[in-house]
């Protein structure tokens, strides 16, 4: 295999079709890092990851160290990046930076061998993947300051707009699974909103509740106890930390999931020993790419945990990667998180199809099975690309 000759990193900004309100964000666009790795013999692998300043800078530094190395030596690259907990393995920034590069290396592997990512993972038989409809905590028409939200949450008539949005998304895209993003600002609002969603969407709909660990253990436990009759699919990060989740889970009958407290292999053993979670809602970026994801899924499978794909809003590259994970890994049996239908722009040619009947099709072709659209990419790029060569 020829070596890596050139790596290009860009930051892009994608507009959302809604103002997204959660306990972490009030936003109408998202920034992502797009990575192209080119080998000496001209194979180009594409990857994507978070678009924060920290991740972009670290990904660039890592990329410089990868020039001249084989893109197929993924284990060695990972070991070089995060040999120990001390080296880059704490928090999401380090692994996220590595994940974008790792994803591009897998894309190259697929193109080299003529296999899709799902096939490289040992699967690929599942051709349609169910996806989740994210629901903001509140429907607003413009960006607002967080302190303005308080009054809106106190007016429960605003719940009608949230329910109307969910029903419209179901009519348009056929969703059967919904994730409500709590702002963790008002317990009464959250309970009322979840009840209204359950009533409107019916018992057949899968409902997830996600306050992004915004409530302390006592409030979260009391809140989730009130949600128990709603028969939710799971509580996603209802509170913070492995300890907090374990205490809450001990008092609930519905499953507990996390994408914030168990985000690397080092977290699995304490979470398993503590009985903290039922579902590892794993994000390919925070988990540091495909290999880590695969290993996480293997551990989860042996230890009786379920696995589901987490995502927020990404370009078609990330969406495609998540579809391959769901098709390639048998441990994933729940609907994928996806913000695909909320993203107003994309950088692929052809674009991924729209969500229909609550599903997205698995991209066909080697590697990720998607290709960049240079015109869209240039239009959406923020700042200058970083180009690294020997």
């Amino acid at each position, binding site marked *: 295999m020829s070596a890596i000759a050139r790596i290009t990193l860009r930051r892009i900004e994608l507009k959302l079709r809604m103002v997204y309100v959660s306990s972490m964000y009030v936003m109408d666009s998202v920034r992502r890092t797009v990575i192209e790795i080119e080998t000496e013999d001209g194979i180009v692998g594409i990857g994507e990851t978070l678009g924060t300043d920290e991740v972009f800078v670290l990904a660039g530094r890592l990329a410089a160290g990868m020039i001249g190395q084989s893109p197929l030596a993924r284990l060695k690259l990972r070991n070089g990046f995060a040999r120990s907990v001390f080296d880059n393995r704490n928090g999401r920034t380090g692994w996220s930076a590595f994940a974008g590069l790792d994803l591009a290396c897998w894309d190259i592997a697929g193109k080299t061998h003529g296999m899709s990512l799902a096939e490289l993972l040992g699967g690929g038989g599942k051709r349609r993947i169910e996806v989740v409809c994210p629901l903001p905590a509140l429907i607003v028409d413009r960006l607002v300051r967080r302190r303005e939200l308080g009054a809106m949450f106190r007016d429960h008539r605003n719940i009608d707009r949230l329910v109307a949005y969910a029903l419209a998304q179901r009519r348009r895209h056929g969703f059967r699974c919904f994730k409500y993003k709590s702002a963790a600002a008002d317990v009464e609002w959250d309970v009322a909103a979840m009840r209204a969603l359950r009533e409107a969407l019916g018992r057949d709909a899968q409902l997830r509740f996600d306050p992004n660990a915004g409530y302390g253990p006592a409030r979260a436990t009391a809140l989730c106890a009130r949600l128990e009759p709603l028969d939710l699919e799971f509580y996603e990060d209802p509170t913070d930390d492995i300890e907090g989740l374990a205490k809450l889970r001990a008092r609930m009958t519905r499953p507990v999931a996390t994408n914030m407290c168990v985000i690397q292999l080092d977290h699995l053993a304490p979470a398993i020993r503590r009985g903290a979670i039922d579902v590892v809602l794993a994000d390919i970026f925070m988990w540091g790419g495909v290999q880590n994801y695969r290993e996480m899924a293997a551990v989860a499978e042996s*230890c009786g945990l379920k696995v589901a794909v987490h995502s927020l809003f990404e370009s078609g590259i990330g969406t495609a990667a998540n579809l391959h994970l769901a098709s390639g890994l*048998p441990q994933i049996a729940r609907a994928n998180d996806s913000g695909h239908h909320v993203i107003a722009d994309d950088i692929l040619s052809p674009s991924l199809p729209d969500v229909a009947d609550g599903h997205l099709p698995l991209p066909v072709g080697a590697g990720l099975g998607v290709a960049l659209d240079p015109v869209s990419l240039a239009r959406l790029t923020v700042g200058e690309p970083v180009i690294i060569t020997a």
Partner: protein
Amino acid sequence: MGGMTIEGARLRPLSEAGRDAARVLEIVAGGYAGFAPVVGEGEAVLAWCRALLGSSAFACNERWVRFVAASDAAGRSAFGTVENALWDLVGRKLGVPLYELLGGALRQRVAIAAPVRIAAEESVEAVVAQAKRLVDGHGFRTLALLDGGTAGQRTASVLAALRVAFGPAMGLRLHLPAGSVRPARDAALTALGLEFVECAGDDASEEREAWAGDPPLAGGRGLAAGPLIAEMCRRGVVQVLVAEPGSAGGVPGIARLGALARAFQLELALACAGGSRWELALAVQLAATQPMAEQAVLCPDAAALSDVEDGMLTLSGAPGIGVDLAPGLGDAAPEDTAS
């Protein structure tokens, strides 16, 4: 990728008649053949092959799900044998060694343990002499004492003699068969600085939990990643996972054990059930790709270790597992066929 449908399989005799690894499975898909040593019963291997006819050679996850649903000891070995042959086949088809399919090698040279046997009639001096021949011939840096279960109280004496003879830098470990009584875990045993003690078949025993400490306990041989191994990891009653590529569920089984080892920060020790070149080559390639597999690979048959230099084997760049049928063997009549 199309055109990789499993078309047929057969067992071929090896020259090492009368042993577990005396047969090799040849499996065919898309015009390519893959090979793996047969672990366990040949009929179970062929039955599994028949069940897979017409399916894709690449679909290892679908196979794993079916395997997990119906796994027992015979099933594990059959599954592992077939998986290993299929991964060999895929490597041959793509023209890359197995380790490259798994993400590339973390180490180009893999440490091998010298198998030192202790039998009832053998003196302590004779065992030390046996070990010395192996070390002098191939530079081994780890001695694996294979106690046949008859040495009894002499085991501790042999270990002490080996430590004196080879000094503190020599890796030293003890492998006991099922039903053996472990030597007393006392200060003298701890002072020997063993890498680990493995007592086969006691993975779920309460005694294991009581014995765990220093030296570390190894376990899991013959098991595939699943609830039992996970429980051993969770309870901390194993410090070293011993993994046989055949009985642990083949290449995907070792990958799963490797993930558990990483998550629970356990060492992973690859071991061969028999002494065939296929098993050794496979174990070496798998060890090269596992971050936690820093323990020397165990092959119980010293005759298979002729290529070991400085106690290490170097990875070959040959496709798949990297071992071909010996000249003439390919012409031998197959023992049985599934097609």
